């Protein structure tokens, strides 16, 4: 017991004389705020006019090539779509009639569907792997006249801005958030850093309106492009577009893929 007591005392004494190394610390706290940045630079004329004052224009339509240039910069994965909209003063999903040229024929109606506008994008959609519809984008060439084709008809959802579904058309990316490259988004990036002749961040958009004769706008279709909504199909045989001035607008929506 004496030995034990002695060792205990010595041990405690040794603890009391042990030292810690001299040291000091200084901390730097770094906070990073990553704000999502989506920039859509659009160069286009304020108003695109389609004046049909010649029979050949009714038959062959009027096309404005590269009337809109879309340039995208985004720090996050993104989707881009176009949607046809109007004020809905005539009817939801229809062009707004600004002026009536005085046709009182009962078959002349003012119900021109917004999807009568056709788009063609210069670069195919490389983020449409998850698309399930007949047409995933607007990259196909404008169809020749004579046979109705819904491949370029503008996406419309009753005049609302709602994004297209997997069955509808996007310009880039698509519905869904799989996170898998090529399926439903375009990865963040910018047209500024692209090289080569094509880019997923740069699109030239062509516009065409084809009234045909009688003016029923045969290529107007529903959102999925599975059914036509031309004036006759949507109304009655013998109907046609009432002469007048109509307006609508195409809204381009760039949104984060989420």
């Amino acid at each position, binding site marked *: 017991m004496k030995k034990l007591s002695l*060792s205990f005392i010595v041990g*405690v004494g040794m603890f009391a004389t042990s030292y810690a*190394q001299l040291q000091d610390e200084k*901390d*730097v706290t770094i906070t990073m705020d990553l704000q999502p940045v989506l920039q859509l630079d659009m160069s286009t004329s304020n108003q695109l006019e389609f004046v049909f004052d010649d029979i050949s224009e009714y038959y062959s339509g009027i096309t404005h090539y590269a009337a809109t240039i879309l340039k995208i*910069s985004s720090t996050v*994965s993104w989707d881009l779509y176009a949607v046809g909209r109007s004020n809905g003063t005539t009817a939801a999903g229809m062009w707004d009639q600004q002026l009536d040229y005085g046709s009182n024929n009962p078959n002349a109606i003012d119900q021109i569907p917004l999807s009568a506008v056709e788009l063609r994008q210069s670069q195919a959609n490389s983020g449409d792997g998850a698309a399930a519809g007949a047409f995933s984008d607007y990259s196909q060439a404008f169809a020749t006249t004579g046979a109705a084709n819904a491949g370029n008809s503008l996406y419309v959802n009753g005049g609302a801005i709602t994004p297209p579904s997997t069955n509808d058309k996007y310009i880039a990316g698509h519905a869904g*958030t799989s996170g898998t490259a090529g399926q439903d988004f375009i990865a963040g990036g910018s047209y500024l850093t692209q090289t080569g002749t094509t880019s997923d961040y740069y699109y030239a958009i062509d516009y065409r309106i084809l009234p045909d004769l009688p003016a029923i706008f045969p290529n107007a279709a529903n959102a999925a492009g599975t059914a036509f909504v031309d004036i006759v199909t949507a109304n009655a045989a013998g109907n046609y577009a009432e002469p007048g001035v109509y307006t609508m607008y195409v809204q381009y929506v760039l949104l984060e893929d*989420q």
Partner: protein
Amino acid sequence: MHKNKFIFYTRNISKLKFHLLFSFFIIIPSLLKAQIHCGTVEFIPNSPLTQDFTFDSFNQYLGGITFNNIGQLRINVEDKAIVDPDCRWFLTMEISNSGGGTPAGEWETLVVYGGGAATTPPIDLLQIRLRNGCQTSPIDGLFQTFTNHGDVTNIIADGLARNDAGNCNLNVNGPGDYLTNYNEYTFTIDVRIKPNFTLKPGIYQLSVKFHLEEQM
């Protein structure tokens, strides 16, 4: 017989206790004992620094943001009253994402904007550069990155022979201070972050601990 056996065991246990206690109180404290070689080892000041990076334009994402001279490490190492020739010091920096449930290779998430399928920023986005007038550190002027929580980078390494100030040598680690040898005892901190376009928007945080300690 049983009684004798019992006594035998208790005696052996007493011997065992003695050896254990002897080891615990005598040998281990001897190993733990460390002699102080320096009188003072400190940063002046040692108040914490903060630096906020806000990325809200595309150009910032592309080019990154660099903050030069977010702060300085001013070192003061003094001899004891009775000068010890073994007074030397070392300096390190250690990255921390607060640990806890944060994955080792990622920034600590404070807030997430939106719900996209993107990734949390990796720690190696952060780049830190130390520099002083005499370029005393082997990593002087070079941006350093870290991979995981707890990674340590030497600025002036431990275990080096004493290298006194005054000649702008590499690895100066002897007694001295930023007042008399400013270019050897002051380290300026630069920070750079260059994010990419695959990261989840939000607010994230890391801390860097600069550790100054005398050599044993």
